[in-house]
């Protein structure tokens, strides 16, 4: 492997040094620089393959450095990193030739992979010839389908379109069978029904058949497999809008992320000609699901005006087919008015409606998970699977091997399966994870009203009503379940919210507390000891916070720095950074401040007990973590090995020095401390806090780590902890957010869907993985 030189430019030591360490470990020669000027001097003097540069630097900005490097050394590949992304800087960075723009913090692997890919893409002579390649333009992922023009064809014109399609592909349409309508092969236009109510089975089976081969297998000495995906060009002629929307859901499921070759090959060879449903089935409730009309998902969409058809073009392919096979004219105003009248009249004919907006279903269902409804209503369920087998939005399947009698070759088959069948969730040991009818019934309704919507952003039920027709016990209609749940919720909400509500008069009123002691910690930090004037204890858990009120100035969330095990008073360590904290810093012993709280979840004591603890404090992260450290030391016998890591920028900024010295002296506590920059007075370790971790000996299986520090520190510390083998569930963090009300209402502290003041501020890394705004 060629040895490449990387120059890392960042003024944050923890970032700079962490990147240096990762890349050195990955085999690169790494040089670091703190400022843009220093970087440019280095570039002028030495050879580098890759430059990793922070956007914000003291003096010259990262973009200026990038510009200068590009003009002097155009072959150097540059990666811009920033904790403050914006569209403008990203665009500018790319314009200047940066090959990527990464948001800090990032994972070691991501950076390493990017650098590897970058270097692999450099042709051998590139460093000699110079000119850097322009960044590759994004490949368009889909043809533009915003065609949406409307035409009119007469019946003969439509016949020509059908015949034209039939000449080159299999034509699937609706025919009558045994008193119902079904999709089937239709060769003659005159056999085609375009005025049906609903088919017994959805057309989705032509994209996702009941049974298909996914692999051919050779079981011989050296077993091999060959993926199989077969498709015949076909047109689905006369698909109703609700089924079109169901197909769009299947597209989302099968085409995005782990795209499914079998589905793709069928989908790509399928033309969809829709037709508006003017004669709704008595069990359908498509308007309530927003699926009685379609805007996308078809190549052509027809409306039957009687002797003519309105044709809406939904794709370039649809436009081409229409132009190729028939003559269409622009619709008259009268025809447009007729179409609208027909569609509106159809909408009025639906007999079933949801009595609740479909957007409310996820929350309503969530709140009713334990309702007796599921047990009661599923009592007559036959577990026959008819509801799921006729559902256009059901797509679950099983995979089975079938071998030939010679036992040498075989096929891996996938076939429909579904959650209403008794054995769907059974594992080899015999355990059935949805063993009773009620849990299966509930799961299906939750998929239709909640899970699919949340997972794919599209409704999980298109309101076709087929399941209600197919269900002999007549319990399957999601509309019935949704309405029943909404009705129960309505009654309960009225009773709970209005009838029985008891106001919490003191919700926003702070309780007066006296400052018993004020002590300076560092230039800008003080610790305050407080007690409520009425003598009551705060009653907090380690890691919780309070809202501190200075009347006339305002409120600020402050984490509690002391452990509840230390008596009825409590301590708040506060950095002077804003109006409230400045006012607090100006108060003397004996003054009164307002306190609301405690709020938040605190550190997960139960999960920490009986485990080895690795407690990591960076900077003022020590303030909240101190409450836990004190707690652990006071109940030392309930915890395994205890290791404390403390990091500060410089010796002058160290706080609680006496207490730190105590911790260092405790026999059954392993204590390590470091400063980013040392001086003459400092005899201890120098380096960013991550440098303390590699030396530690920990047992990953029984260790919990609690990390509190500035946001920039988290990812780097996490990177080191992951190297030690800790799982995401074993890494606990406390996040800083703007917690204004503290009671989960004002919205300032929200991280994606979560309120930091309620579900946080303490989270495990596992919880944070799903919260993209978190770190």
């Amino acid at each position, binding site marked *: 492997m060629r040895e490449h030189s990387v120059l890392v430019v960042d003024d944050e030591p923890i970032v700079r040094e962490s990147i240096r360490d990762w890349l050195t470990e990955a085999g690169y020669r790494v040089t670091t620089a703190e400022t843009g000027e220093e970087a440019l001097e280095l570039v002028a003097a030495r050879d580098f393959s890759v430059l990793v540069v922070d956007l914000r630097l003291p003096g010259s900005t990262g973009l200026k450095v990038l510009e200068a490097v590009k003009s002097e050394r155009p072959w150097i590949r540059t990666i811009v990193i920033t904790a403050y992304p914006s569209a403008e800087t990203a665009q500018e960075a790319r314009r200047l030739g940066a090959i990527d723009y990464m948001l800090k913090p990032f994972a070691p692997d991501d950076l390493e992979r990017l650098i590897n890919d970058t270097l692999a893409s450099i042709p051998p002579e590139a460093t000699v010839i110079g000119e850097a390649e322009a960044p590759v333009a994004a490949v368009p992922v889909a043809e533009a389908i915003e065609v949406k023009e409307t035409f009119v064809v007469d019946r003969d014109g439509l016949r020509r379109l059908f015949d034209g399609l039939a000449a080159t592909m299999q034509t699937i349409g609706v025919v009558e069978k045994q008193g119902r309508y079904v999709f089937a092969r239709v060769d003659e236009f005159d056999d085609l029904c375009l005025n049906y109510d609903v088919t017994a089975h959805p057309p989705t089976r032509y994209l996702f058949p009941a*049974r298909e081969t996914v692999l051919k297998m050779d079981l011989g000495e050296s077993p091999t497999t060959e993926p199989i995906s077969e498709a015949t060009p076909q047109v689905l002629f006369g698909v109703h809008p609700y089924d079109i929307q169901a197909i769009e859901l299947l597209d989302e499921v099968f085409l995005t992320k782990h795209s499914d070759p079998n589905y793709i090959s069928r989908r790509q060879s399928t033309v969809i000609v829709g037709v508006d449903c003017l004669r709704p089935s008595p069990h359908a409730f498509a308007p309530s699901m927003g699926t009685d009309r379609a805007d996308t998902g078809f190549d052509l969409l027809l409306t039957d005006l009687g002797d003519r058809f309105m044709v809406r073009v939904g794709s370039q392919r649809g436009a081409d087919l229409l132009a190729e096979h028939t003559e269409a004219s622009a619709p008259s105003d009268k025809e447009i008015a007729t179409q609208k009248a027909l569609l509106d009249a159809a909408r009025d004919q639906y007999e079933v409606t949801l009595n609740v907006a479909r957007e409310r279903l996820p929350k309503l269902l969530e709140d009713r998970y334990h309702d007796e409804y599921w047990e009661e209503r599923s009592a007559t369920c*036959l*577990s026959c699977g008819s509801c799921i087998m006729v559902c256009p939005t059901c797509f679950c399947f099983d995979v089975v091997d079938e071998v*030939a009698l010679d036992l040498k070759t075989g096929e891996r088959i996938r076939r429909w399966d579904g959650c209403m069948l008794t054995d769907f969730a059974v594992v080899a040991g015999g355990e059935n994870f949805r063993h009773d009818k009620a849990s299966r019934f509930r799961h299906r309704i939750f998929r239709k009203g909640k899970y699919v919507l949340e997972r794919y952003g599209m409704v999980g039920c298109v309101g076709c009503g087929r399941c209600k027709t*197919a269900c002999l016990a007549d319990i399957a209609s999601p509309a019935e379940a949704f309405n029943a749940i909404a009705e129960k919720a309505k009654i309960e909400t009225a009773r709970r919210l209005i009838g029985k509500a008891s106001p919490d008069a003191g919700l926003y009123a702070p309780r007066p507390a006296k400052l018993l002691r004020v002590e300076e910690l560092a230039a800008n930090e003080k610790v305050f000891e407080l007690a409520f004037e009425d003598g009551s204890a705060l009653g907090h858990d380690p890691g919780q916070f309070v809202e501190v009120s200075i009347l006339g100035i305002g409120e600020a969330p402050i984490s509690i720095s002391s452990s509840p095990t230390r008596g009825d008073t409590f301590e708040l360590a506060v950095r002077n950074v804003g109006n409230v904290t400045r006012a607090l810093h100006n108060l003397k012993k004996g003054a009164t401040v307002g306190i609301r709280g405690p709020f938040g979840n605190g550190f997960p004591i139960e999960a920490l007990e009986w485990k080895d603890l690795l407690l990591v404090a960076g900077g003022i992260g020590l303030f909240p973590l101190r409450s836990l450290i004190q707690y652990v030391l006071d109940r030392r016998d309930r915890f395994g090995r205890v290791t404390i890591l403390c990091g500060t920028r410089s010796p002058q900024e160290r706080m609680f020095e006496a207490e730190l010295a105590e911790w260092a002296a405790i026999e059954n506590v392993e204590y390590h401390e470091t400063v980013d920059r040392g001086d003459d007075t400092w005899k201890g370790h120098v380096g960013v806090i991550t440098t303390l971790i590699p030396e530690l000996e920990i047992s990953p299986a029984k260790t919990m780590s609690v990390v509190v520090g500035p946001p920039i520190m988290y990812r780097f510390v996490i990177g080191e902890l992951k190297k030690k083998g800790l799982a995401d569930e074993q890494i606990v963090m406390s996040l800083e957010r703007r917690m204004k009300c503290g009671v989960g209402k004002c919205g300032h502290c929200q991280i994606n869907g979560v309120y930091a003041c309620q579900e946080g501020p303490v989270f495990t890394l596992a919880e944070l993985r799903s919260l993209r705004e978190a770190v």
Partner: protein
Amino acid sequence: MRPKVAFFDFTCCEGCQLDTLNIEGQDLVDLVSAIDIVEFREVATGKADRYDIAFVEGSITRESEIPRLKDIRERADIVIALGACAHIGGINCLKNHLPMDEALEIVYGDDAKYYDTIPARPIHAVIPVDFSVPGCPINTAELLRIVKELLLGKTPALPNYPVCVECKMAGNVCVFERGGSCLGPVIRGGCNAVCVTAGRHCWGCRGLVDDPNLDSQKDVLTKYGLTVEQVVEKFKIYNTYTEVAQ
């Protein structure tokens, strides 16, 4: 070594063995080269001491059949019930609704005194049975699957979903919607709903699924116009033994 396989029959029409012989073309060639058929009265004479696999067709309806079946069990590593009579008792059990004397009388008239009979039962009521190939007659594809799975060392299992699943997969219009009635919702699938696909309804020859909701199925049948007696008659045809056992 090819496994030694034998076929036996008790009270039955031998249709399932006949269907086994009806396996066509390459499949039959491959089957007889994969296994060593040591006893099969319909095709060959011969007798062996031990069998790796014994297929047993027919239900048990006479005392004299019991020791013969037990003897087969002792000499076979694996016993597989072949078809509805062996698997669930099948239509032979219809006579169990009568006193045995009366049943003999109806069938044999004056000669009844020369015969003995006992209430009919599936073979699992007499000996432990390892696997079953359900149906009246059997689905030969299922028989082949079970043989292949045994040859591969896999434990064969029957589908535990009702006929409705494969009926919907086949794209059929539901029998109830066509104005008929059907046992499909509680009967074990695996037959590809062959009867419904052919325009009829499910008679129940493959027996009940593991956890059938019989009360609900009876409600459904009465809701669709059957009297209680008619409902019971429907279940009796193939599932008398199971019904009585419950």
